[in-house]
């Protein structure tokens, strides 16, 4: 049987910009307070249309857990690695803080953590997933923007959305093959 392959599917049209996901992430993962220290973010996209017919979308994002992860390739000590489930993680004890992964990441998803004394990023909340729970950002979202699941399980909500709806990935030209899918 094939390994699970985790992914998050996002329907940005549902996003209210309440930022509950960013708060949940901070509390769940003890992310230090600071302008530069965050694992996930919600970008307010530019206004579209003309007054009075205006429209605005928000784009929540985080580490894309790329299949072809540039951060993993440039990490000199294998501190950054991919699990069998396709989740990109950092072994804090192996990080020498050369910051090559930060320079290599096309999504600016990494930062230096004073708490871990290493480079930190989204982990898909693997400590929760291993207990059968969803990542904190997924669970807390009031409108269910994010859907977390196993792409190899056709019955999962994530797989069903991907098979039934048009979707796109961020910066496809970088050939990183992200595991975050945005519904069109």
């Amino acid at each position: 049987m094939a390994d699970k392959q985790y992914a998050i599917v996002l329907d940005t049209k549902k996003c209210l910009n309440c930022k509950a996901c960013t708060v949940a992430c901070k509390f769940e993962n003890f992310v230090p307070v600071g302008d530069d220290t965050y694992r996930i973010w919600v970008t307010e996209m530019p206004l579209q249309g003309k007054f009075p017919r205006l429209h605005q979308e928000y784009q929540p994002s985080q580490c894309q857990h790329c299949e072809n992860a540039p951060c993993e390739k440039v990490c000199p000590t294998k501190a950054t690695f991919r699990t069998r489930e396709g989740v990109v993680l950092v072994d804090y004890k192996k990080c020498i803080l050369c910051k090559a992964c930060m320079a290599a990441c096309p999504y600016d998803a990494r930062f230096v953590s004073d708490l871990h004394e290493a480079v930190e990023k989204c982990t898909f909340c693997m400590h929760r997933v291993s207990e059968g729970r969803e990542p904190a950002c997924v669970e807390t979202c009031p409108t269910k923007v994010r859907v977390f699941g196993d792409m190899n399980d056709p019955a999962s909500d994530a797989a069903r959305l991907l098979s039934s709806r048009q979707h796109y990935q961020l910066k496809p030209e970088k050939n990183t093959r992200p595991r975050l899918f945005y519904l069109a």
Partner: protein
Amino acid sequence: MFQSLDKYRSMIRINKDVPSMPFIILGAILLFLGFIGVVRVFWQGHEAVYGVTRQVPWGLLIATYAYFVITSTGLAFIGGLGHAFGVTVFAKMSRRIVLLAFIILLAGFTQIGMELGHPFRLLYLFILSPNFSAPIVWMGLFYSIELVILAIELYVVFNPSGTNHKVAAVLGFFALLVGIVATSNLGFVFGSLTARPFYHGVYFPMYLVVSGIAGGAALLMLIYNIIYKFNVPDFYSDAMAGLGKLMGICLGVMIFLLSWKIVSSLYTQPQDSVEAVTTLLKGPLSSHFWIGEILLALCLPVALLLISRVKNLKALGMAGLAFMIGMFFTRYDFIVAGQLPPMRAGLEGAGVETIAGLVQYSPSVGEWMVFALGLGLFLFLYFMSERFLVLDEQTRQ
């Protein structure tokens, strides 16, 4: 045992005619400032002392690391030409070449050692858990080998029983080869970054090697003028002319490479790369670029080499001085420019602050202090060697 020590006494002499004391004192002051910087980093932490950010993770210390180590490999290249490839004009400079290359490499290691958050982890993780797909692993390996080769070369060229030329030739060849590989690999540390189009590709691996050789020649021309108070003896005329010609060729190649880099970035306007080049041409790095990179590192040295026809040794010294100052800006520009275009637009909520579409970086006092450590180490160790070691016995006895 005392007899063998006596042999080495012939290598030691107080050279009062060499103007080394001002540089030793300057080096000591810079070392002291650097020491304060190091204490601050260990006391307060890297993040509190350095000005690098999430968006610009590599700053001044990566630039100064590149500045030092690439100059070192350029010197090793010139030394290798003298020892291994029969360019005998450079052989008479071999002691200074090897000594400079060794000390300036050590200076570079101080910069990367202070830049890394966990330099001691690196020492065992490079052995226990190396990722061979990471260019940094190869860079570390090759520069470590270079340091060992240069240390052995030092022993060989300072052997009081005389230099074993066959051994020196083999060492010189490997110092040249490993130096080129190490520097081009340093370029690939940046060239491998697909996220940053300004870096990505073969340009920097090539440019760094060529500019390193020019840097090695420039430093030698400058040092010889300092040591001989801008009155270099005729004994070195041919070697100095050779350095001038070598530097001239490298400058020509650098102008060629830089021109195409700019044209290719502006012509088709690949995302981010054009923004990085624009920061150099008319953005926040434009004064560095036009004054440091173009005027001091390229135009002035080329003009001095052409006007002097590579014969006036004072002009060669001035060309070397201009180039070494300009090259500092060149290294800084190349490190910083590639990181100023943000990985996502600085919109509300994105967590990225931009001004005119670019993120900002300015080195902190702490970073300048660590640079002072490297520069101070170089000045102090090298000019102490000038004061107390016999570096060119042919003319001084």
